[in-house]
């Protein structure tokens, strides 16, 4: 296997506290998505499909599950010789004490030794909690062709939403970045940063070393490193990404991202044989659809047993809908059981939750999606 010149580092330390109970015990990248996946499967599969052999995953918050999950690099085919997924939580070193990752840039700074050991020419920085398919090899080709010092992937967002994002103002011809504004009140462009960066490692290394010593720094790529590079007159370019991209920060948006899979021509297209998303291989039966079941507009995976009604919903591995139960406009995470006669509507039911007989969860006209994270007792 040919050695790759680009090493990827996935930032996966965040909690994602607006996902409430879903991230009580697991970090956001480990949250389930799309019936059988975890969110971190997307950047990892993208790396594997882009021909990147070595991926570091920077973990911090509630990382037991995430660490063991990503360490099995074989799931994404990242287990050949000289290939691998490295779990990188903060660690004590011979010359430095143990310290948490103080920001996205600090997480990389604390692992300069690891990156050096692989001597990459380019470093790819990714977020572990975004859902999208992207060929990083194409982004690298753009980076090289632009003779860039750093390239930032951007996506066009509706201008009225642009103030929610980090916005790149570019010179129209070449997409060289002239200005970066974090959540601007009056955005001048609609190119939102996706938090995906390619850096020339030698340069970034120097900047990180300087940043570590700067007491005024937040040690953050968006707040510190990128602005400094622009000030220094470095060549930064925006790489325009077209396609599905979602940062699922809230229960509503996680629900919505799942619902997106129900649209017949959804852009994410998990059925694309040329860009498969790999995940854990679970040992379950195929899907059972019972004699009295009704299943329409649903996304259902192996191990599910549907004996009741499922409509406009996504069912994750091993969830069960008993006879007479109704699941409408909802997401059932792995192992959920909806007992006979229960009704689940506009809800996102967390892993392994039991909805008792004739119980009701969620409601058809709620403003927000209800997160069901505790057992719902049955009613007679």
């Amino acid at each position, binding site marked *: 296997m040919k050695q790759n010149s680009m090493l990827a580092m996935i930032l996966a330390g965040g909690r994602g506290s607006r996902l409430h109970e879903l991230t009580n015990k697991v970090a956001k990248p480990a949250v389930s998505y799309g019936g059988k996946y975890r969110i971190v499967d997307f950047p990892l599969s993208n790396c594997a499909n882009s021909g990147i052999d070595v991926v570091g995953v920077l973990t911090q918050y509630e990382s037991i599950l995430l660490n063991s999950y990503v360490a099995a690099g074989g799931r994404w085919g990242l287990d050949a010789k000289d290939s691998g997924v490295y779990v990188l939580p903060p660690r004590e070193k011979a010359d430095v004490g143990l310290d948490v990752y103080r920001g996205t840039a600090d997480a990389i700074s604390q692992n300069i030794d690891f990156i050096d050991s692989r001597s990459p020419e380019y470093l790819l920085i990714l977020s572990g909690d975004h859902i999208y398919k992207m060929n990083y090899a194409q982004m690298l080709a753009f980076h090289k062709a632009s003779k860039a010092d750093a390239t930032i992937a951007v996506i066009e967002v509706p201008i009225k939403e642009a103030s929610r994002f980090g916005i790149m103002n570019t010179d129209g011809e070449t997409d060289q970045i002239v200005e970066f504004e974090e959540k601007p009140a009056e955005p001048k462009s609609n190119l939102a940063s996706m938090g995906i960066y390619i850096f020339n490692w030698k340069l970034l290394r120097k900047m990180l070393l300087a940043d570590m010593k700067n007491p005024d720094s937040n040690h953050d790529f968006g707040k510190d490193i990128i602005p400094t590079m622009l000030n220094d007159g470095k060549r930064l370019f925006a790489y325009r990404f077209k396609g599905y991209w979602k940062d699922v920060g809230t229960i509503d948006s996680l629900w919505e991202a799942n619902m997106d899979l*129900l649209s017949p021509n959804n852009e994410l297209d998990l*059925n694309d044989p040329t860009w498969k998303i790999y995940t854990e291989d679970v040992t379950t*039966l*195929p*899907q059972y659809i*019972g004699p009295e*079941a009704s299943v329409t507009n649903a*996304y259902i995976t192996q191990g599910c047993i549907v004996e009741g009604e499922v409509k406009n919903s996504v069912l994750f591995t091993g969830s069960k809908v008993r006879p007479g139960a109704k699941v409408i406009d909802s997401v059932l995470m792995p192992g959920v059981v909806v007992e006979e006669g229960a009704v689940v509507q506009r809800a996102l039911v967390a892993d392994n939750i039991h909805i008792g007989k004739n119980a009701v969860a969620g409601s058809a006209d709620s403003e927000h999606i209800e997160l069901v994270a505790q057992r719902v007792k049955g009613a007679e």
Partner: protein
Amino acid sequence: MYSAFGIVNSSPRNILVEGLQDFRPIGAFSFLGRYRVIDFPISNLSNSDIDRIQVYMDNNKPRSLIEHVGTGRHYNINSKSGHLQLLFSGARSWRDVYNTDIAAYIENMESIEKMHHPYVVILPNYMVYSQDFDTLIGSHISSGADITLLYHTIDNAKESCLHCNIVNLNRQKGVLSIEPNPGTAKNRNIFMDTYIMKKDLFVSLVKKAAAYSSMFSLLDIVNAACTGQIEGMDLDVRGIPHKGFFAPITDFRSYYDANMALINIKEAQNLFGEGWPIYTRTNNSCPTHYMDGADIRNSIVSNGCLIEGTVENSIIGRGCVIKKGAVIKNSIILADTLIGQDVHLENFVVDKHARLIREKEIIAPVGNPGYIKRRDTL
């Protein structure tokens, strides 16, 4: 935990599953949408803590079986101490009279003699059942028998298992003889082609069989030991009954019936026990999308499908597309098949990659399922 190795045997030359077997050996047949038949014997061994496994290949089109079994990693066998070997027989052709299991064992005697495990479990790649062999070896040892055979009692032996053998037992479960199912009685003990014995005995039986007749099979020599056909061979051969789901895949009808029987979830629970996972090779398919207008009842569906039509009492393999207005009843659809708009299909097995688009009525009589070839366009 007993120290044993496993031998997964290929089907004997008298068994032919029309249609499907033209393309692959029975072990590689798709089963219940996401499995292949051989997943059951190998998972049984793996779950029984037996992780030295020899898989004997049919010389008949082995490609798909080799691809599927591969290194055996997905069967959860220990990646260092465990080992799965694919072994071939020297028979020139599959239907050759010399194509016996004994010939294959002789060909691979070096690999067999190298095994340091005192016991061997021999089981077929063409029968679907779950069995804990660790418990079975324990029973074998405590009974003091030389050979233990696994059998399954059925009450419809006049119509089913006609290509199987039966064991005739005395009251103490001693095996009197093994013979082809004559189809004359309802109640029979069907031999599951599954043996437990000491490795040394196995090796000596193989050599004895080869010397006695070039057409002899392991079954023949064990039967000879029971009946006294060969002088001086005196072995204690006993039967142990198997409980749970059992389906030998020995002809087209039995393949169809075995799949259909498992659409019933209660029946499936007799095969897929708690804590007894059946492993298979993952295909990394996404979940299945049931579109608006889909009507699915009493069916088993694999991942990666797009379903807009009606499916009733059927099994749908991975990655199938079922278009609007299509109706599928009492059928088994293998992976990556397209069932076009308004196609009405009943009582069929549709082999992989078939495209059913032009003929709108494809219906076989109930009780006599039809077969559509791999990669066919209709």
